[in-house]
């Protein structure tokens, strides 16, 4: 018995040893910074970027009582829902096409790689690459004018909410494709064939087999997409041309004028909302089992 326990302890020790380097990064560069932000949200500012450690809830009162906060959250929520919807639809269809319609597996994997390559390139560059297309004299407007569909160039395309959503969908659909592709690839094709043999329609197969079995991929993708959109500020800042602001872009402005406590308070609020959202998703799906298996 004791020998067993000693062995157990030794195994645990080696596991802990192996995760120590990871923890040595996560504690000082994730856990502590978040706690610092939490602490800063309760401090007073001296107006010059310094923080006075007097406990106060003034920043929270400021943030929660301003009508601007409400608008910021509304804008952020609007962008999050729209982006989530479009990335989900496109990501699901692309993953479904690759897994169930491309019969040559080598081709499917090559096409999958084609979709993933831009993920490893600069986000900012991919975002500004919409300028020559969406601008007043851009390709989309020229094409529409040329075919006579419109008489005047559409100004709403660039530096607007439309441009923000386009840039988000362009950058983030990959975060839906990868997890959905992975969970769909795990579906046993024989299940689908059996359902076909038993007389199920293709709609039934989609509704009763494929969507339920890709649930975990959809959940993971949704977590990624919504947390990135809610935490973003540079797409909103550049693509809206300054006409829209999100929670984090307001945070950025506050940091710029050294209003750390207010910025921190709104960051804490945003984090709480994110945590609530993610734990809601996690109630449906055991993400850890999904990832490690």
């Amino acid at each position, binding site marked *: 018995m004791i020998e067993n326990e000693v062995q157990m302890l030794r195994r645990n020790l080696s*596991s802990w040893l192996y*995760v120590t380097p*990871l923890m040595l990064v996560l504690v000082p560069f994730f856990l502590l910074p978040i706690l610092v932000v939490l602490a800063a949200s309760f401090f007073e500012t001296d107006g010059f970027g310094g923080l006075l450690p007097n406990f106060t809830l003034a920043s929270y009162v400021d943030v929660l009582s301003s009508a601007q906060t409400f608008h910021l959250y509304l804008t952020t929520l609007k962008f999050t829902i729209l982006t989530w919807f479009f990335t989900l639809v496109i990501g699901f269809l692309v993953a479904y096409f690759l897994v169930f*319609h491309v019969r040559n597996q080598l081709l499917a994997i090559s096409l999958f790689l084609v*979709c993933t390559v831009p993920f490893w390139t600069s986000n900012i560059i*991919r975002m500004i690459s919409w300028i020559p*297309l969406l601008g007043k004299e851009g390709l989309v407007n020229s094409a529409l004018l040329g075919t006579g569909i419109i008489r005047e160039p559409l100004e709403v395309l660039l530096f607007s909410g439309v441009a923000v959503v386009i840039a988000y969908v362009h950058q983030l659909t990959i975060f839906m494709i*990868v997890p959905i592709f992975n969970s769909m690839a795990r579906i046993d094709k024989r299940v689908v064939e059996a359902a076909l043999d038993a007389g199920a329609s293709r709609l039934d197969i989609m509704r009763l087999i494929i969507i339920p079995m890709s649930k975990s991929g959809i959940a993971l993708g949704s977590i990624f997409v919504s947390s990135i959109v809610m935490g973003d500020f540079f797409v909103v800042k550049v693509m809206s041309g300054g006409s829209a602001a999100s929670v984090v872009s307001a*945070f950025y402005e506050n940091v710029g004028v050294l209003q750390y406590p207010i910025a*921190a308070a709104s960051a804490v609020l945003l984090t709480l909302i994110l945590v609530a959202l993610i734990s809601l998703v996690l109630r449906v799906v055991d993400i850890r089992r999904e990832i490690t298996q």
Partner: protein
Amino acid sequence: MTVALERLDVAMTKARRRGAVAGGDRRPWTFYALAAVFTFYVAALYGPMICIYVLSFQDIRGGLVFPMKGHSLHWFIDLFTQVRTGDVQGSFDRSIKLAVLVTIITLVFSFMAGLAFRRRFPGDTFVFYLMIGSLVAPGLVLGLGVGLLFQWAGIPATWYTSALGAQLSWTLPFGVLVMFAVMSRFEGVWEEAARDLGASRWQTIRLVVIPVLAPGLVAVALFGFTLSYDEFARTLQTAGSLNTLPLEIWSMTLNVTSPSLYALGTVTTVVSFVIIAVCIGAIILINRRRGVRAAGSAH
């Protein structure tokens, strides 16, 4: 992603065995509809990027939109010689150095964490959720936290201290997630066999585990390098006084309205593409050599 890459060799042999893939029976209409969606997606994915590469090769009259005005390398030369576009050369150097540092650390730390996470151990759930938290935390908020922490501790923020740490808090969770995918296909019996044959723990890792996992480790390196090289939000508040390349690009998007911005985009994307090609090429090469060896030993 890695799983897909790992499957590549299996797929290749399968496809070879089958010869030409059978495509006799008729495809449903949904195939054509979805193929259209897929084509549209890929066109929208690459189209805009290709536009700015093309536009970066204009001559001095060039503007930000089509039509092309002449052909030259003017804006590339402008990029590296003009002072008004900022310190592109210096930030480029720093970004590469930082990305190499991040890659090495990500590779080693994720590999070790991957080994640990093969079994349950007390506290594993805490570590796991700490990692997920670090992955989804808004980068700018985290960056501010790191910046304030360094300020309070009296350590000056620089790209090789605070920015390095802030980037690792982003690349490491990705690295570990990739390791999970890789490890799930690793058979523990190979390790046991090595140990039964008298290999020490270090020998087992060096001679069995690392070679078997090599393609996955290349994938981790790919994530480490590219995510660091393009990282922006976490670096913004932590890089101190000297910019990395994405920070340089960011300041250019706000005040430079010439095609030199596109030229910089072309340069940085070429670097990314080279890294991606090298990594994917390495993975395919390792898998193919393995396939040949396995086929050779079967005869």
